[in-house]
């Protein structure tokens, strides 16, 4: 091929270029500048570092990387210099940044807020290993947050500059595409089938099988779509991948396009992710320039282009038929399936839709083989899953673990536990999912185990809740979300979720009867059974799963007009437990009302008339001396 576009030689040149910036002969300081980093002040640290380095006339690189996952500790900064391990620092501010620069110059790096050191990089795709320094103390793998993780989909996040295609290539990028276009499309699909990869967008359908349908559908014009609508509250796996490693999604889509016979790919990304959109657009521009997207890719005759379409943030537009309607410029409303998008999708053409994380897993599967991927995880849920681990947990962040890892490992080993207050439940699958009680903490996290427990894998939101969470209130939160996000097309979802919210409001206010509980349950089952699309069909899950495991809590709200967790304002009072009170006075300090007073060596006292039940004391007392009790003015029914 003439021009060297999308050629093997091109890959070699790019790889050299990428290695020269990944492992420069000089000092390199990288700042995690994904959205999570920016929210914690990464931009300030980044410009500050640039200024300091420039001011001191140092010939160092100050570079950008995506999110390394430890969002709790953002801004994250890594420091690399020839012959040294890569130091990973957390919660870096100007002061620490200055100390780091001084430390490098003096040959002695600070220990403060050091998460760990990376001694070598394993390149997942090529099997190569790059040694930075001989093994030594504080390896990052020993950090409990990182130790149990296996990073396949997020293999490059936090390692490469997302705006550098060369760095992506240097870690084995676009080799899978090159390999794929030399294979028969059927062979690729076979490989994906073998991998056992299941869609990471929620339903967990077998990706290879879905590709097979789209391949088999007749038509010259076909489409592949990347679903980057990510609407679950608290979930941000897809955003992190798009911001940290956009090319893996592009490469996956190109491979998928080749396999099913599509020439066009569309990424439907929510507009609330401006950084992801900008990163994607830049990545597409670079990939086109190098000839990895465009005409005649790697001289194979295969042509493929990708464009980004921005969604305007309706949760329901993540549902595939609504998503298609939205791309076509119509109202984002689902339609009944069949016909499935594989038969009649975008503009009526066969269309294959996959989630961001699903696409990100494709290049490794093609490079390492389906069998390799199937060897990770469990028999029916292969590979890894990225979770957004949030809530009442010490280490918030983005974690990628092999399927089958237990909740205990995720919550306690990686997440560092829930602190003073005991774990009560873990919510997975967002508004479509359910609450798993602490008693099932040894549940292995895979599609089937979660479904059996009454939750779902969903897209990867994982909200940890401690004993201070009211499960009725949690169910109410999710129903409030779904009733607000329901498109309103079908009766059960539109009216049903609204009535469910009304009933839950009643329960939380202590105005409900036991018959309301039956009504709620009957309604929940009917909505689940009759709604048109996945939104309505799964909206009752948070209610049903909390009813399954925490029915006593519902009953306490109704019968005793008491919220045992102390959340529903009308239904509890707070008192100081005289036995447990250590007279430390912390509660008194945080009370905005001055409702708690006391003196040394005597239990503190709480004045009911002043207390507004803001819970500040409850969440502050390390000795659990603040007790939640029923309101005295309510008599149990």
């Amino acid at each position: 091929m003439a021009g060297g576009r999308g050629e093997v030689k091109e890959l070699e040149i790019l790889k050299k270029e990428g290695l020269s910036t990944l492992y420069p002969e000089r000092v390199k300081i990288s700042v995690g500048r994904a959205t999570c980093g920016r929210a914690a002040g990464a931009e300030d640290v980044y410009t500050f570092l640039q200024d300091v380095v420039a001011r001191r006339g140092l010939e160092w690189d100050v570079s950008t990387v995506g999110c390394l996952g430890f969002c709790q500790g953002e801004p994250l900064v890594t420091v690399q210099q020839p012959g040294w391990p890569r130091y990973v620092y957390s919660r870096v501010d100007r002061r620490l940044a200055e100390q780091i620069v001084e430390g490098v110059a003096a040959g002695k790096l600070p220990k403060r807020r050091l998460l760990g050191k990376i001694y070598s990089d394993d390149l997942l795709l090529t099997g190569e290993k790059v040694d930075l320094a001989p093994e030594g103390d504080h390896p990052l793998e020993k950090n409990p947050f990182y130790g149990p993780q296996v990073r396949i989909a997020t293999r490059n996040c936090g390692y490469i500059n997302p705006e550098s295609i060369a760095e992506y290539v240097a870690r084995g990028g676009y080799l899978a595409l090159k390999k794929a276009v030399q294979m028969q499309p059927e062979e690729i699909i076979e490989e994906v089938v073998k991998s056992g990869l299941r869609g990471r967008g929620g339903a967990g359908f077998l990706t290879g099988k879905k590709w097979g349908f789209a391949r088999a559908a007749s038509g010259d014009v076909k489409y592949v779509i990347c679903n980057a609508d990510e609407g679950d509250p608290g979930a941000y796996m897809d955003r992190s991948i798009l911001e940290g490693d956009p090319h893996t999604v592009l490469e996956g889509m190109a491979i998928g396009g080749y396999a099913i016979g599509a020439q066009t790919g569309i990424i439907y990304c929510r507009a609330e992710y401006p950084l992801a959109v900008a990163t994607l657009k830049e990545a597409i521009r670079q990939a086109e320039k190098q000839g990895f997207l465009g005409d005649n890719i790697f001289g194979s005759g295969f042509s493929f282009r990708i464009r980004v379409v921005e969604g305007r943030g309706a949760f329901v537009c993540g549902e595939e038929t609504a998503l298609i309607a939205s791309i076509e410029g119509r109202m984002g409303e689902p339609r009944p399936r069949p016909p499935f998008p594989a038969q009649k999708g975008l503009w009526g053409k066969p269309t294959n839709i996959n989630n961001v994380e699903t696409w990100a897993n494709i290049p490794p599967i093609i490079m390492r083989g389906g069998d390799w991927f199937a060897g990770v995880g469990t028999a029916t849920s292969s590979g890894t899953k990225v979770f957004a681990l949030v809530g009442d947990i010490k280490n918030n962040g983005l974690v990628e673990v092999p399927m089958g890892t237990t909740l205990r490992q995720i919550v306690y080993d990686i997440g560092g536990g829930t602190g003073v207050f005991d774990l009560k439940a873990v919510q997975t699958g967002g508004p479509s999912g359910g609450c798993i009680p602490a008693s099932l903490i040894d549940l292995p996290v895979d599609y089937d185990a979660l479904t059996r427990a009454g939750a779902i894998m969903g897209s990867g939101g994982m909200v940890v809740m401690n004993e201070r969470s009211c499960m009725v209130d949690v169910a109410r939160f999710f129903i409030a979300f779904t009733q607000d996000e329901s498109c309103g097309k079908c009766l059960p979802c539109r009216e049903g979720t609204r009535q469910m919210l009304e009933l839950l409001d009643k329960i939380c206010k202590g105005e409900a009867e036991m018959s309301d509980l039956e009504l709620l349950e009957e309604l929940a089952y009917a909505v689940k059974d009759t709604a048109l699309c996945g939104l309505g069909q799964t909206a009752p899950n948070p209610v049903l799963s909390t009813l399954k495991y925490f029915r006593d809590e519902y009953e306490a709200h109704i019968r005793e007009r008491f919220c045992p967790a102390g959340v529903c304002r009308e239904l509890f009072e707070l008192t100081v437990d005289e036995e447990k009170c250590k007279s430390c006075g912390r509660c008194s300090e945080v009370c905005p009302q001055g409702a708690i007073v006391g003196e040394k060596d005597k239990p503190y006292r709480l004045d009911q008339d002043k207390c507004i039940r803001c819970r500040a004391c409850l969440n502050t007392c390390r000795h659990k001396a603040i007790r939640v009790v029923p309101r005295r003015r309510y008599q149990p029914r």
Partner: protein
Amino acid sequence: MITINGREFPARDGETVLEVARREGIWIPTLCHHEGLNPYGSCRICVVEVTAGGRPGLTASCTLPVSDGLVVETDSERVRRCRQVLVRLLLAMAPNAPVVRELAEKLGVTDTPFKRLGADKDGCILCGLCVRACEQVGAYAIGFAFRGVRRRVTPPFGKQAAACMGCRACEQVCPTGTVKFTESGDRLFGDTWQAELQVVRCPECGAPVGAQPLFGHVREQLDNTGIAVENLCPICRRKKLAGEMAAVCVQPK
């Protein structure tokens, strides 16, 4: 062949389960379905239970295409209970609509435990029949706006329905009687859509025969078929036709 309630029935490709059931005299309640309009699947009252040959569970029969070996139940316990919940939700929405009351009665429901929560005062159940009728006559004068419980049918931006041509198809299909038109002198008012149109009168007898834009639209649609459009009212048209036929038939050869 598909199986409904334990009996096998022949079915053609492209048919829906509802169509087969209707042909075979099996009753399935419907609300948002109309034979002349595209299926939509919004009221869900027509749900049936798929037990084999498809994804098991309940699904709307008006949008479910037949497939060989499909087995459904139209009146299982689960179906009945769900329909009852649905009609109770409808009763909370439009307690006075006769169509809802009748349906409730047929399903053995007398009242609703649900509160009436700011539902549309006119008894609209958001079935979408009017919107589809308007789309399919080609006017696109009305549509849905807003999401979830705020959803409603409206002309664009809630303004006067400028594209309405006064065909009154929406009024014709509306099951709840929500859509209303009134005539006054030479004006036709689409009350629900704030439309105001010129009435066309029969040149023979002076009876109102429709709205001005409608004739323009029909003329446009029939433009190259050579069929002439006349403004005659049905009676005068029949009279005229009879006269012409008489002229043809009675004339000696």
